[in-house]
C-alpha cells in the first residue's frame, strides 16, 4: 500500500527504470542477439556475401576435435586457477585477519594487484619468466630445470595459470577478509573454551561459516578464468606452443578476428554464453539457499 502512495502515476516507475533497461537492452541483449543471428550465417569479413546455413557452424564445431580439446583445457584452467587463487587468498586473509600491528597496511598492499590490467600482468610475468630475458628463469635454470615455455606446453600452461591466479588473489582476499570479519568472535571463543586448537577451529568453525563466500567466489573465479584470462593469454603465449594454451575465449578471438570466420566465432560465443548462464543459474540457486553448514 505504501508503495502506491509514493508512486502516484502508474507510468512513473517504468519511466524511472527505463534508462537502466535501455542500457541493458542496447549493450547486452542487442549484441547477444546479433551473435545468435551471426552464428547461423556464413559471411565474409566485410559482410559482402551472406548465406543462411542453419546449424552448419555448430555442426562443424562439434565435429572439430580441436574444439573439444579447448573445452577440456578451459575447464582444467578454470579449475586450477580457481583452486590455487582461492586457497592462497584464504591463507592470506586468515593471516591478515589476526590482530597485527599495521594490519591495515598489509591489507591495502594485498589488494593492489587487483588494479593491474590483465595484459600488464602478462607483460610482468613475461619479464620474470621469459626463457632468455627473465629473472626467475635464470634461477630455474640454475636449479636444473629446462625452463622453456616457448616450446614446452605444460610450462606455458603453468605460466598462464600462475599469472591468472595471482591477479585474482586480491579480489578473493577482499571477500574472504570481509567474510572472516563477519563471523562473530563468540563462536571462536566458545570453540576455544571447548579445547579446540587453531587448526581444528579453522576447519570446523571458520571454514563452514565461510562456505557461502567460498561458493560465491568459486563461481566468480571460474567465470573470470573463462573470460578475463584472454588478455593474459594474448600477451603471453598467443595460444601456443602448439595449441596448449588455446582456451574457448581465445578461440573465439582467433577464429573470428584473426581467421575471419565470423559464423563459427559467433557460434562459439553463443555456446560460451549458455555455459555462463548455467553457471550463474547454479550460483543464484545455491547462494539464495545460503549453502548448508
Amino acid at each position: 500500500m505504501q508503495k502506491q502512495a509514493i508512486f502516484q502515476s502508474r507510468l512513473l516507475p517504468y519511466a524511472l527504470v527505463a534508462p537502466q533497461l535501455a542500457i541493458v537492452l542496447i549493450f547486452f541483449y542487442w549484441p547477444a542477439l546479433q551473435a545468435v543471428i551471426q552464428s547461423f550465417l556464413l559471411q565474409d569479413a566485410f559482410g559482402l556475401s551472406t548465406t543462411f546455413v542453419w546449424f552448419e557452424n555448430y555442426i562443424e564445431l562439434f565435429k572439430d576435435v580441436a574444439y573439444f580439446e579447448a573445452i577440456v583445457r578451459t575447464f582444467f584452467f578454470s579449475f586450477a586457477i580457481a583452486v590455487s587463487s582461492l586457497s592462497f587468498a584464504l591463507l592470506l586473509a586468515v593471516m591478515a585477519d589476526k590482530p597485527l600491528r599495521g594490519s591495515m597496511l598489509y591489507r591495502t598492499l594485498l589488494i593492489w594487484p587487483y588494479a593491474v590490467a590483465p595484459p600488464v600482468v602478462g607483460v610482468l610475468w613475461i619479464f620474470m619468466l621469459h626463457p632468455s630475458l627473465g629473472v626467475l628463469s635464470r634461477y630455474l635454470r640454475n636449479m636444473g630445470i629446462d625452463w622453456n615455455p616457448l616450446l614446452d606446453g605444460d610450462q606455458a600452461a603453468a605460466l598462464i595459470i600462475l599469472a591468472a591466479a595471482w591477479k585474482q588473489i586480491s579480489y578473493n582476499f577482499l571477500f574472504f577478509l570481509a567474510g572472516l570479519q563477519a563471523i562473530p568472535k563468540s563462536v571462536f571463543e566458545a570453540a576455544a573454551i571447548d579445547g579446540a586448537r587453531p587448526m581444528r577451529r579453522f576447519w570446523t568453525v571458520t571454514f563452514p561459516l565461510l562456505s557461502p563466500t567460498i561458493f560465491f567466489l568459486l563461481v566468480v573465479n571460474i567465470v573470470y578464468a573463462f573470460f578475463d584470462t584472454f588478455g593474459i593469454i594474448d600477451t603471453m603465449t598467443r595460444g601456443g606452443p602448439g595449441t596448449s594454451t588455446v582456451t574457448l575465449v581465445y578461440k573465439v578471438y582467433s577464429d573470428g578476428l584473426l581467421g575471419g570466420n565470423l559464423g563459427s566465432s559467433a557460434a562459439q560465443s553463443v555456446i560460451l554464453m549458455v555455459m555462463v548462464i548455467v553457471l550463474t543459474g547454479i550460483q543464484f540457486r545455491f547462494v539464495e539457499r545460503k549453502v548448508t553448514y
Partner: protein
Amino acid sequence: MALRHFGAAAAIALTVGLSASPALAATEIQWWHAMTGANNDVIVKLATDFNASQSDYKVIPTYKGNYPDTMNAGIAAFRAGNAPHIMQVFEVGTATMMAATGAVKPVYKLMADAGEKFDPKIYLPAITGYYSTSKGEMLSFPFNSSSTVMWVNLDELKKANVEIPKTWPETFEAAKKLKAAGHDTCGFSGSWVTWVNLEQLSAWHNVPLASKANGLDGFDTVLEFNGPLQVKHLETLVELQKTKTYDYAGRTNTGEGRFTSGECPIYLTSSAFFGNVKAQAKFNFTAVPMPYYPDVKGAPQNSIIGGASLWVMGGKSAEEYKGVAKFLTFLSDTDRQVYIHKASGYLPITKAAYAKAKEEGFYKDQPYLETPLLELTNKEPTENSRGLRLGNMVQLRDVWSEEIEQALAGKKTAKQALDSAVERGNTMLRQFEKTAVK
C-alpha cells in the same frame, strides 16, 4: 585491452578534433595506419608535406593500433558504412582485402578513373608483384616493404673464428662452433618462424608453398609445403633444437632482443629490424642474404617481401578518389621514395629511387641496407617467388607455427608436423573460399 581501448579512444578524439578544425573547401582523405615511433613521424611528415603542396585535398593520418587491429578497425568501419579512404594493411591481409570486391577500389582502376598518370613499370616488380593480379594490375599501393635477411654479430663470429655463412650447411656448422665458443643457449635463431622457414625458404629455393602460383591465380589454391626440402629443413632445426644450437624464439618478433643483447650471434628476421639493431646493438653487425641449400638446383632464387601496402576503400566519391590518386602519385616521387627509404629503413618501391639511393652512395657505408633489395631482385620472380595470396593468412601462420612448435618440442616428427599443417591449413583455405565473394 584497456590500453588498446584508450588508444582507440584517443585516435577517435584526434580524428574528431582534426575534422572539426576549419578545413574549408579541402576534401578530406582519411588514412588509417599502424606505424609507431619514427615510422609514425614519417607518415605525419608525408601527410603534412602533401597538404602543404596543394589546397584541394587534406590527408588526415590516424594511428589505429598494430596491423591486425588496424585491419579489423577498417573492416568494422566498412560494415558500419564509414570506412577510411586509405587503409594500411599488412602483406598477409592481401587475400582478404582483394577478395572483398566492392569494399576496395583497386589502385590501377583508381588511377585510370581519376585520369592520373600511372605507369606500373616504374615500380620494382619484386615488390609490386605481391600486390598485383597475375595480369600485373596493381591492386594496392606498396608502402613499407622489407624482406628476410640474416643478421650477424661480427664481433662474436670473429671471436669464435667463424666465417659469415652463405649456405644452410655452413650456417649449422657456424652455429655449432659459436655454441662451443660460449653461446650455449643459442647458436642461431630467428623471428617469424613460418615466414622465414616456410614462406621465404620455399621462394628462395623456387619450390611452391601452395598451388596456383602460391594462391595468386585463384582461391582454390592448395598448400604444398610438406615437400622434401621443407621437411629436411625442419628436421635439421628439430635436431639442432635439442642442443640449443638452434633455439626457437617465438612466432612473432618478440625474440629479437636475443640478437641485440648478444645472446644469439646469428639471427634471421626482417630487414626492418635495422632501426632496433642500430639503436641497441653494442657490437659490429651486418646483414647478409638468407642462407640456401647448395644442392637445390638454381638456388638462391629471389626472396619475397613482408611489410604493408595501402588499400583504397570502396564507395567514395569521384572527387575523393581524385585526391587519393594525387596522393599516391605524390608518394611515388623519386626524392620522396628516397626519403622514406632513408628515414624508415623500408625499401624504396620505384626503380628510380633505388638507383638514386645507390648513386648517392647510401649503401657504401651501410651495405647491409641493400641486402634485402639484392635478394628481392636476385632473379626474375617465378610463380613460386612472386608472392603469396592465401586467405586467413594470419590464422594460417598461427596454425603452421603450432605444428612447427610441436615438432621442435619433439611431440611430432617434422614430416608429421608439416603434413598436419598442410591439412589444417587447407581446411581453412576451403572455408575462406566458401565465404569469398565470387
